[in-house]
């Protein structure tokens, strides 16, 4: 097998004042023809920088300090800009994490693909169109004739990623760089895209450099793996070896941090419900005018469920399933169109604004984005004590409680005087949890509370939640798109699809004896499912 790309001793320097001198330090690896190399690491490990350096897309101030990247007997890092441009697309192509921002929103899909040919001066106008159509067929987009005339916003996330891949394949590159291409997608869509990449590799014999943070994905597609941490390669080898017999400490920790399919012991649940949702409905209406009918989306369609005191109920679904709307309705950030939300006997859905304000403390929420959920101009103390003080708790007492809670969530009391930007994502999420706890709620709703975090941080926050559940008898409605995460923490799991409740049952029932077709599909789509089963079996 011939080698497509060889990187030797690559070092990429960061501008002065950054947290470390090199984004990437002395990294070497090679990718053979037809091979998929997975570069794994947490955020800030330099995995994307490596890819950007190859494409000549480094941000200003960041420069290649040393090393070579040999591609077709030339060092791509030192080519003049014009030759780099000729290389990009034609020989080396790249696909990105967020297909919506990577596509031009004002250009039809077909034109965007044809533009790739135009940029490299290939074919005539009509031939380009012909080729674009072929490519769209190759990436298995439905109804190619229609897709070619569609704008990016008319496509779903998975279809957009397919269109991106079609563009990347247009000039038959020898190397495809994929930077977290499935991270923004639902599990079922992710599974399809991974399969497509495997297919294309098979058919075209491309080399693929696949950047990801998800070992599940690695298990699914990788031939070779390198694990990066703080700009350095800590482990490399064949996928099977790295996954099943990791040598480096860090790799082992990463693998341990992955939520496994291993199911927790079932716990006895109390009979008293903390939250009861009965026949909840929420319809979003958009558009509507003289000539257009109103578009109705049933975000939550007649859903009934309950969370027992001390129970953690996982609410799982893909994007657009209405799980977040359900969560927001339960705290009444969204007012439902019908149905009841009973918390401790009070129907939150029926209260007036003023009454509601007094009952707010009963249900609290931990939000998804640790960067948006704290006011950047307010000290942590203020963020935590605002609520209790409004409720009438004396300031002194509220502040003492806030310090205590900050200790409990593992930050230390002196965190109170600092501003949010001084904390990392995981720490902010702990602050969010402390803020929710400060209100002594009967129920906490965690809306994708760990989705934005790296696996190792994710594991820590999940540990914290589990610990709090034991200590404080917390009832939690845990909303997530990730079945593996749900399995770790939850007592029962509810599966939603298109606003409807598909299935609800204990973790064991859902994972081992799923009743519904959709649940089975979700379970099968979890990346690396087979590998995980072996792993859990051997542990």
């Amino acid at each position, binding site marked *: 097998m011939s080698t497509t790309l060889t990187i030797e001793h690559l070092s990429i320097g960061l501008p002065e004042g950054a947290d470390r001198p090199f984004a990437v330090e002395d990294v070497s690896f090679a990718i053979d023809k037809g091979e998929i190399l997975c570069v794994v690491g947490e955020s800030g490990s330099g995995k994307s920088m490596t890819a950007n350096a190859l494409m000549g897309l480094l941000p*200003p101030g960041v420069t290649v300090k040393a090393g070579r990247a040999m591609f077709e007997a030339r060092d791509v890092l030192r080519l003049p800009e014009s030759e780099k441009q000729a290389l990009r697309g034609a020989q080396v192509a790249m696909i990105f994490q967020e297909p919506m921002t990577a596509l031009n929103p004002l250009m039809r899909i077909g034109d965007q693909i044809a533009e790739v040919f135009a940029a490299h001066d290939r074919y005539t106008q009509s031939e380009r169109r012909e080729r674009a159509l072929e490519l769209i067929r190759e990436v298995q987009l439905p109804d190619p004739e229609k897709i070619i005339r569609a704008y990016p916003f008319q496509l779903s996330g998975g279809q957009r990623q397919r269109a991106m891949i079609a563009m990347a394949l247009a000039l038959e590159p020898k190397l495809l760089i994929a930077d977290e291409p499935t991270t923004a997608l639902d599990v079922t869509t992710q599974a399809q895209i991974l399969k497509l990449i495997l297919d294309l590799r098979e058919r075209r014999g491309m080399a693929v450099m696949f950047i990801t943070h998800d070992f599940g994905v690695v298990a699914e597609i990788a031939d070779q793996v390198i694990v990066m941490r703080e700009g350095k390669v800590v482990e490399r080898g064949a996928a099977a070896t790295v996954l099943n017999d990791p040598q480096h400490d860090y790799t082992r920790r990463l693998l341990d941090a992955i939520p496994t399919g291993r199911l927790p012991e079932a716990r006895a649940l109390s009979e008293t419900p903390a939250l009861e949702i009965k026949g909840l409905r929420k319809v979003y209406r958009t558009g509507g005018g003289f000539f257009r009918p109103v578009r109705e989306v049933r975000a939550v369609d007649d859903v009934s469920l309950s969370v027992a005191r001390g129970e953690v109920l996982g609410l799982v679904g893909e994007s657009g399933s209405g799980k977040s709307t359900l969560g927001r309705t339960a705290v009444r950030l969204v007012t439902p169109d019908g149905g009841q939300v009973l918390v401790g006997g009070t129907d939150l859905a029926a209260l007036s604004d003023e009454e509601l304000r007094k009952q707010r403390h009963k249900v609290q929420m931990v939000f998804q984005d640790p960067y948006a959920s704290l006011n950047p101009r307010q000290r942590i103390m203020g963020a935590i004590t605002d609520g209790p003080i409004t409720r009438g708790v004396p300031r002194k007492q509220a502040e003492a409680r806030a310090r205590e809670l900050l200790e409990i969530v593992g930050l230390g009391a002196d965190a109170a005087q600092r501003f949010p930007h001084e904390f990392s994502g995981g720490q902010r999420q702990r602050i969010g949890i402390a803020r929710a706890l400060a209100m002594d709620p009967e129920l906490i709703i965690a809306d994708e509370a760990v989705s934005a975090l790296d696996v190792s941080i994710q594991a820590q926050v999940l540990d914290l939640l589990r610990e709090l559940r034991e200590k404080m008898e917390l009832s939690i409605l845990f909303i997530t798109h990730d079945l593996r995460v749900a399995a770790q923490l939850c007592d029962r799991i509810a599966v939603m699809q298109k606003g409807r409740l598909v299935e609800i049952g204990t973790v064991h029932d859902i994972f081992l004896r799923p009743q519904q077709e959709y649940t089975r599909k979700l379970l099968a789509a979890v990346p690396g499912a087979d590998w995980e089963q072996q792993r859990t079996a051997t542990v």
Partner: protein
Amino acid sequence: MWKRFRSNIGAVIGVVLLVLVIAIAIFAPLIFANSPWQMVQRPFLAPFAMDGLPLGTDTLGRDVAAQLAYGARVSLLVGLVSTLVALLIGVPLGALAGFYGGYVDEGAMRFTEFFQTIPNFALAIVLVAIFEPTLASITLAIAIVSWPPVARLVRAEVMSVRKREFVDAATLAGLSKPRILVRQVLPNTVSPIIVMASLMVATAILLESSLSFLGLGDPNAMSWGYMIGAARTVIRSSWWLSFFPGVAIIITVLALNLIGEGLNDALNPHLSRKGKA
């Protein structure tokens, strides 16, 4: 933030210039013993033609340098006060419109548009003509024509901040809506308001000068615009009479613009034009 501001050479030059102008305005009575209205020499003395009158005299034999110094007081005062008044109108209106949306927004925005559809300067002239032209009425007129952009900016900022999750968190904490607006949302809109305000001071100075040029200034206050207006008939024979007040206006407005841009880069590092990594 201060460090980022300092690293911007243009902004530092702006600050130096502005401090200079402010110092001259404050110490005008100390530097120039004579009132700017007092005739001190024969008219049309060219600059440096006589000791003690570095910028010469005007059509009536008054000291141009003294006029400039006293004019700085009027320009700066009108600029600052009118901007403050404009903020007092624009910020609350924009904040309410952006935060409550719906009918409040519709009402506030139609009201704002009513002012925006009339050309700024024409409206200012009409307002000054209706009131007596005094410093207070001129300041008020300038404020009335310059608040709509503030209201629009604040509205847009509030609308975007309002959708952030920490606002939801504050709602869940049981905070009342007015309290959320004042304590959580508005502090996050301060940076662009500061930037806009610094640029508005410059615009207000220009507006005041233009009004004075047209003879609509306060007859009892010496201002740069009045000086240029009074000198326009003799612009060919006595260039210095319109040149120096013109330079004063340019320097002050330029200084404010430089500071505004510096503040913009310092307060919104993500939008910095230079795109430093």
